[in-house]
Each structure stands twice: as structure tokens, then as C-alpha cells.
């Protein structure tokens, strides 16, 4: 074997060896056989390739565990029942995401918008459009609040509407008119009232905290001339 033989035909032999492993009939032709007889390295590669091919034939595929089909079918069929629940959750998350984005946009807008110049006597060179008042901070917050409130109200209305229709239909029912709901509903009614009061009292501190946070935020907003460098 000489280096000249290796450099001239070895790459071609290696390609033929790959085609042989691909399963191509006659990939290793007479030229390859001649080369193999002269080149020890390619001969070793050929032997290794034959060994690899033989081992792959013997190896086979892994056996599936017992009962795997049953478990997969059960899992898939169970999963098919859940999409409606997943859809409801997704809708709620979408509404929350929209509300969060809205708040973020408003907050960023307030943070980076130029504040009205209250102390500078020189008026802005850009004339205000007659009839349009400049938007104040409070107004922006009011707008944001009303937007979130309307979004929440609309979602709540969509949720409550079926129950409302059901109650209306039930109230119009002649059976109920003839025989009103007896006093046995009172304990449940009282429980619901207590729950409502409890919830209201529970949310009160949260609402107060939120109000205080907004107040603090408004107080800390820089006025004209107080802007921090780089902001």
C-alpha cells in the first residue's frame, strides 16, 4: 500500500462504502475490490462496515411494554374530554392578558409621556388644537380604569347571562307562581349573604392597598423640571 493509492482512491472508496451501508446493490465494484486489496485502512473500514451491517440486522427493534396500547388509548380518549375545559381556561387567560397589556401600555404611556409644563411661563411652540383639552394624569387613569371596568363587566355579563335567563324563565314559571319557594331556602340565602359580606370585607383591605399604591405612584411622578437624567 502506498500513500499515493490512499490519496487517489480512498475518498471514492469511502463513498462507495456509504452506499453499501445504504443498501445499494453493487456499490463496491471491482475498482473498490482492487483498492481494498492494496489499502489496509480501507480494508479495515470494509470489515467494520460488514460487521456493523451484520450487527444491525441482528439487533432488531425494542419490544413495546405489555399493555402500552391500552394505556395510550385510555390516555388519548381521556384527553379528548378535556378540550372544553382547556378552552374555558384559555378564554379567561386571554381576557386577563388583554387587561394586563392594556394596563401596561397605559402605564408606559404615562411614564414616558412628556408632562404638561405648569411652571414655565413660555407657552409651547406647538399650538394646541382648539377645542381639545390636554389629557391630564387623572383623566388618563380614569380612562384606564373605565376601560378595565368595562372589559371586566363585559366578561362578567357573558358569564352571568345564561344564569340570568334561567332565573327569569324560572320566575315566569306558573309552578313557581302557584307555589313560591318555601322558607327552606332562607338558610341558603342567608349563607350566600354572609359569603357576600365576607368577600366584601375581605377585598376591602386589598382595594385600600391598591388605592394607596396608585396615590403613591401619582405622588412620585416627576413634574416638569424634576425629571431624572436619562429618563
Amino acid at each position, binding site marked *: 500500500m502506498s500513500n499515493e493509492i490512499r490519496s487517489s482512491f480512498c475518498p471514492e472508496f469511502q463513498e462507495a462504502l456509504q452506499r453499501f451501508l445504504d443498501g445499494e446493490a453493487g456499490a463496491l465494484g471491482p475498482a473498490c475490490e482492487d483498492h481494498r486489496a492494496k489499502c489496509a485502512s480501507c480494508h479495515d473500514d470494509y470489515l467494520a462496515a460488514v460487521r456493523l451491517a451484520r450487527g444491525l440486522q441482528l439487533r432488531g427493534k425494542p419490544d413495546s411494554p405489555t399493555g402500552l396500547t391500552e394505556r395510550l388509548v385510555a390516555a388519548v*380518549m381521556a384527553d379528548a374530554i378535556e378540550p372544553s375545559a382547556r378552552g374555558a381556561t384559555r378564554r379567561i387567560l386571554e381576557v386577563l392578558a388583554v387587561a394586563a397589556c392594556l394596563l401596561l401600555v397605559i402605564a408606559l404611556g404615562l411614564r414616558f409621556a412628556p408632562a404638561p409644563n405648569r411652571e414655565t411661563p413660555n407657552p409651547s411652540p406647538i399650538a394646541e388644537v382648539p377645542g381639545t383639552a390636554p389629557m391630564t394624569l387623572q383623566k388618563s387613569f380614569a380612562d384606564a380604569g373605565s376601560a378595565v371596568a368595562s372589559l371586566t363587566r363585559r366578561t362578567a355579563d357573558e358569564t352571568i347571562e345564561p344564569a340570568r335567563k334561567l332565573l327569569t324563565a324560572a320566575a315566569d314559571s306558573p309552578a313557581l307562581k302557584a307555589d313560591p319557594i318555601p322558607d327552606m331556602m332562607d338558610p341558603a340565602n342567608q349563607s350566600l349573604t354572609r359569603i357576600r359580606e365576607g368577600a366584601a370585607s375581605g377585598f376591602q383591605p386589598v382595594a385600600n392597598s391598591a388605592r394607596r399604591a396608585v396615590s403613591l405612584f401619582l405622588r412620585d411622578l416627576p413634574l416638569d423640571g424634576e425629571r431624572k437624567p436619562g429618563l
Partner: protein
Amino acid sequence: MSEDAVLVRRCLKRDPVAVRSLIERFQSEVFGLCVRILGNRHDAEDVSQEVFLRIFRSLHKWDRQRPLRPWIMGITVNRCRTWLTQRAKRPELMEFIQETAENRPQDDFGELTREIAAAVNELRADYRAAFVMFHEQGLPYEEIAEAMAHPVGTIKTWLHRARTAMLTRLRERGMVPDDVVEPVPNLETKPKSGR
């Protein structure tokens, strides 16, 4: 309409017979690929379940003009990749089962198959997936390329490198005889397309 399309349509209507039929048809390939890529039968079983859940959730996205098998194998490869990434983040004592005792060939080639299993396990995950899909599952280059979302040329390169690495390992481990002592295997049963 192709047989695949009919089956998928019935599966979309949650026909239990069709669901079972689809699972039975691809379960062996999916599980086999998972075992080879993950090197662990327990993980492979978990990932197989994830794969089939994902298949049925996104069956409506399958393009009827394309074959179903590479699409399913693509989902399998992706889930295995994700699993490998997650497993790398939580180092724990893993029991890698290459071949169970009862599956181990009892002839003279037992050592050879174990060496091949170990060599496959040492390959890069992409190379391993391509190698297993070609040599064990008989997928043609085009279907492997579609499953792995890479061009056919890339798959050929990966397979070439994987084989070269395995040949080197077999030589280093003394698994190659001095001369041919066995008949040259007929590999022509492998897929024909894509060559």
C-alpha cells in the same frame, strides 16, 4: 382520499376504533425511536404517551397532501429532544437499559449488538435519531428529512458521520475481525427511495 386521510378523519371525530387503529399502527415505531434516542425504556414509555397526546391534539393541523408517518416521527423526535433537555437539567441517577436480559441475543453476536447499542448511545442526539430511523425503522432519506425538518443533504451528512463514528468505535473495541469470516449481509431490504 388516502388511507391515512380516512383514518385521520375518523380520529378527528373521536371514533374509538380509529384512535386505537392509529395508535396500534405507529406505537411500535414511536416507542422504538424513543427507546433508542432516550436510552431508557421508562422514559420512552412516558414520552410515547406525550407523543400520542400531542398527535391527537394537533391532528387537525396535519397536511393531507403529505404522508402521515414522517409527521408522527417528527413529533416523536421533537418530544425526545425536549425530554433530553429537561433530563439534562435535573441530574439524577438514571438506569439506562440498552437491552434487557431476555432480549439479549444469545448467539455469538451478543457482544457485537451490545457494542452497537453503546455506540448508538454515544452519538449526538440528531445523528442518533437519523441513524435509528434509517437503519432500524427503514425510513427513506426524504421522510427522515421531513421528520427532522432538515434538508436531505444534511440527513445524509449526519448519517455518514454517525456511521464513521460507529465504524471507528467498532475497530477500537476490537470488534472487527482480521478478515471476513461471515457472509456479507444483504442490505437491499432497506428503503429504496431517497437514494
